[in-house]
């Protein structure tokens, strides 16, 4: 097997909400075109960590990063203050916990990322929207009603619409923040299938509360606790033979 190449290198990452340190000295490599799952009990910092990758924390005052996240292959440090967060978000997309379509049509929701990049060529937009909706396994369900409001869709469809929206800009990394926590089991399994399929083209990091989900969709898993990475490695190994006692206790459901 070819050795996996690195997409992002997290080095000595610390993160502060004001004076509260939420992430402590995180070091890990995100591998290209693989799914990396972040698991851990509530409040362990997994969502905070995920939101460093697209600089979401910059939206709120008094947040501070230390260390670096180096994006390959061009070696830019995406949390450096010299890098515009918008530039980072142009390359790294995100799907949120709750489906958050905009009050626009289905078409315009998917086209949004292109519109904010100044693309208004109708033919280009139509092509990208179709491709993205197909990529998100939603095309057949919505192709006849692209001009209908996105709010008409069901929760699971809305979440797949948000995935299509994130895909439309051809991101290098796709971040998922507990994407199925608001969905029913059938919608959840559809999203999971989708994630497995998407990794052929894009690097994925997913935060999840659901350990079975992490086991089903990811190749690599990081277990976090109190703002630190306790253990990081191949998902099979983390779930079958964890080397840390804390990981084992969490996975076997003794706490969390």
């Amino acid at each position, binding site marked *: 097997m070819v050795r996996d190449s690195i997409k992002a290198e997290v080095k000595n990452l610390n993160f502060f909400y004001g004076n509260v340190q939420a992430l402590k000295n995180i070091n890990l490599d995100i591998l290209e075109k693989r799914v990396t799952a972040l698991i851990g009990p509530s409040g362990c910092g997994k969502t905070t960590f995920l939101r460093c990758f697209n600089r*979401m924390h910059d939206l709120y005052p008094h947040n501070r990063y230390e260390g670096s996240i180096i994006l390959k292959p061009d070696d830019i440090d995406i949390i450096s203050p010299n890098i515009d967060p*918008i530039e980072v978000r142009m390359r790294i997309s995100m799907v949120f916990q709750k489906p958050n379509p905009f009050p626009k049509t289905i078409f315009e929701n998917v086209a949004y990322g292109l519109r904010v990049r100044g693309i208004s060529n109708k033919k280009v937009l139509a092509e990208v929207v179709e491709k993205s909706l197909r990529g998100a396994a939603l095309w057949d369900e919505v192709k006849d009603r692209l001009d209908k409001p996105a709010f008409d869709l069901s929760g699971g469809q809305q979440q797949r619409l948000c995935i299509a929206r994130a895909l439309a800009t051809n991101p290098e990394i796709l971040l998922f923040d507990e994407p199925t926590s608001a969905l029913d089991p059938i919608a959840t399994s559809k999203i999971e299938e989708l994630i497995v399929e998407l990794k052929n083209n894009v690097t994925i990091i997913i935060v999840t509360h659901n350990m079975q989900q992490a086991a089903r969709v990811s190749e690599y898993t990081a277990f976090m606790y109190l703002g630190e990475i306790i253990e990081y490695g191949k998902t099979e190994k983390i779930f079958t033979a964890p080397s840390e006692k804390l990981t084992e206790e969490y996975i076997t459901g003794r706490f969390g």
Partner: protein
Amino acid sequence: MKIKKFKERIIESLLFICAVSSIFITLSIVVVLSYETFGFFKEISIVEFLTGTVWTPLFEPPKFGILPLVTGTLLTTFIALLVALPLGLMSAVYLSEYAPHRLRETVKPILELLAAVPTVVYGYFALLFLTPILQKFLTELSGFNALSPGIIIGIMIIPYVSSVSEDAMRAVPMHIREGSYAMGATKFQTAFKVIIPSAFSGIAAAFLIGISRAVGETMVVAIAAGMMPNFTINPYEPVQTLTAYIVQVSLGDVPHGSIEYKTIFAAGMVLFMMTLIFNIIGFWLRKKIREAY
């Protein structure tokens, strides 16, 4: 035990009376208004009233075409909205999306103070300050005109528009905002492509509150617009609005029960209908806002 129950009943009845009295007062206003308006239409044909373009009920020969007052009202309202809607909306966008927390907490109450200035002060401000300044640039502008009070009413209602729009924008859930930023949108794009459409029904309600306020405004137009029923859409000319007419007649000594007296109620009815329509639309939009998310 019995006494306690009795006390409860008394309190309940008192509260009920309070609640009912406001409804009763509103209804009586409508009844009186309708009654006197009905009396007016016994003497004047409703067609003449609604289509006539001359309004001279106090002169000989009296003419009872309401249209000059309606156009006067619509003209000053329109000018006011040209000022208030863009400025109110832009300041709401700034306060909701751009301003740091501390600044917002300082600026918002100051902006709302604009609504606390007595309207008579605004009226003299329009007549004695704004009109002379405007006349330096617009030489055809007469001393009394629709433009200057229109602008001042616009400034006056900015706080209504901005405050309610800002509340609507801030009520847009954070995850919708984050969704836009996560797509690489700028603050400006997020505000105009996502936040304003999301808050649309609240913003529309804010606009309608502003419109109702502008339509009903009395002192500013009574002082600065010229008290001249004028069937025109030229903002440089003097006009009279429905409210200003009502004030004019109420202050004079028209005999009770005369046709001149009844014109107040007919004009009042038209005004009431105009604001009622705007309020119903506003109420309907506010109800829709809750269904948005």
